[in-house]
């Protein structure tokens, strides 16, 4: 699972940091750093974080799997 956070939208409510602290961390007061490739044992927590984000800034999905043709 891959994630991207729309940091244009993020306002630093940090709900994701509480729900999945191994994936999301605050860097300073409101700057968000996160692990883009989510480890398997964190997938459920990340889904909860994405659902709980007050501004719905977390996009969860799979990477494009196509290789070079």
């Amino acid at each position, binding site marked *: *699972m891959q994630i991207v956070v729309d940091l244009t939208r993020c306002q630093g409510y940090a709900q994701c940091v509480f729900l999945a602290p191994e994936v999301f961390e605050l860097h*300073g007061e409101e700057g968000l750093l996160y692990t883009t490739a989510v480890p398997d044992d964190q997938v459920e927590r990340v889904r909860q974080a994405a659902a709980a984000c007050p501004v719905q800034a977390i996009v969860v999905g799979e990477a494009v799997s196509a290789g*070079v043709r």
Partner: protein
Amino acid sequence: MSGDLRGGRIVVVGASLAGLRAAETLREEGFTGSLTVVGDEPCPPYDRPPLSKQVLLGKASADTTALPMRRDPDADWRLGVAATGLDPLEKRVMLADGESLPFDRLLIATGTRARPWPNPEEASLDGVFTLRTSDEAGGLAERLAAGPGRVLVIGAGFTGSEIASACRERGIEVTVAERGPAPLVGALGGTLSKLAAVMHRNHGVDLRCGVTVTALRGDGNGRFTGADLSDGSRVDAEVCVVALGAVRNVEWLAESGLAAGPRGIACDAGCRAFDMYGIVTDDVFVAGDVSRFPHPLFGYQMLSLEHWGNAVAQAEVAAHNMVSPGPMRRPHLAVPTFWSTQFGINIKSVGVPTYSDHVVIAQGSLEARRLAMVYGYQGRVTAAVTVDMAKSLDYYKNLIETAAPFPPPPGAADRAIAADITIPSDVPDPSGLSHGPTVALTGHLPDRRLTVVQPSR
């Protein structure tokens, strides 16, 4: 009509953020035809902002930032092959491997690349980097992990400042050389650039402003050892990062007859490309960093934005318009927004700060490193920048969208004491800076009148 537009062949050139989001949106909007996405990098679409943050800090490796799909666009991905030309009459895109792809409608989202150091011989020294792709980030991160004695960053725009910040956080000595008077001055104006300079110096950056780098030096074995500055001084360093802004990937369109140049490809508010005569096409669309588009909030000047959010929003509008008949098409009117995290503070911007004559500090203060600065142009709010105050940004965005008077009326409960005292915004001529501007006003004002559009209710 709309039935025809939902079928046929669409080619997207550019497999990064804008290309991926456009491909997804085409399917969401009901496109059922064949969809091909061409990208010159061999890897699937990936996110670039983490490259100057998580990756340089050593918290993530450069090959892990692949973008998640919001839905599978069921596309034929042609990755690792660059587009080399466009034949608008035959409606074909030529590829570097000799093949050519026929299309009914084309989306151009080729983005930008890092502006290289102007001297190719010096640029090829081992230890000299630019930062735009995941490969470049991976190579630089590896050098930083090895603990170099000093890193030289050329250019104190957002990317250069973030690189310097990451170096300091890793305990690496860093010198930043900037031709302008202060970091970020080209994007944020004089007042906030003073705060940026303080943040650099308080975090131990050796910040040199008002200087240019005149030469990069090697040790005779092709390894970078330092640089000469225009003030006669010399910086000894093991790694050099050239952060001079971006170059738009338009060379492949030189023979296409499109209005493509160093500032991007001109398009209308519906993302349709202009040809070289200024006539709008109806089958070639543009989105993301490579585009130039008019924005009514900023005097209909042509904006070129290197913003993550713009790539997404414009790709969605372009995709919608590619499958919608004329009256159903939408304009790309999103207000420009971007962010940067550096030296422990979060900077966010809405509107176009360079489109300003004065600013006020509406909330907080420079000393507190927490503030909201509002930018005005001829009595109207045109931009706002927050430092660790992101929750206030939407309020100011609304002021921009409604052409609120400047200085803005009292709004926040924690309004700054001098929120009605305006200061000149002090935005310098971009030609005096090391780094290219991330927001460029590339047109001229046809007149100085404001246009107010009142929707009928």
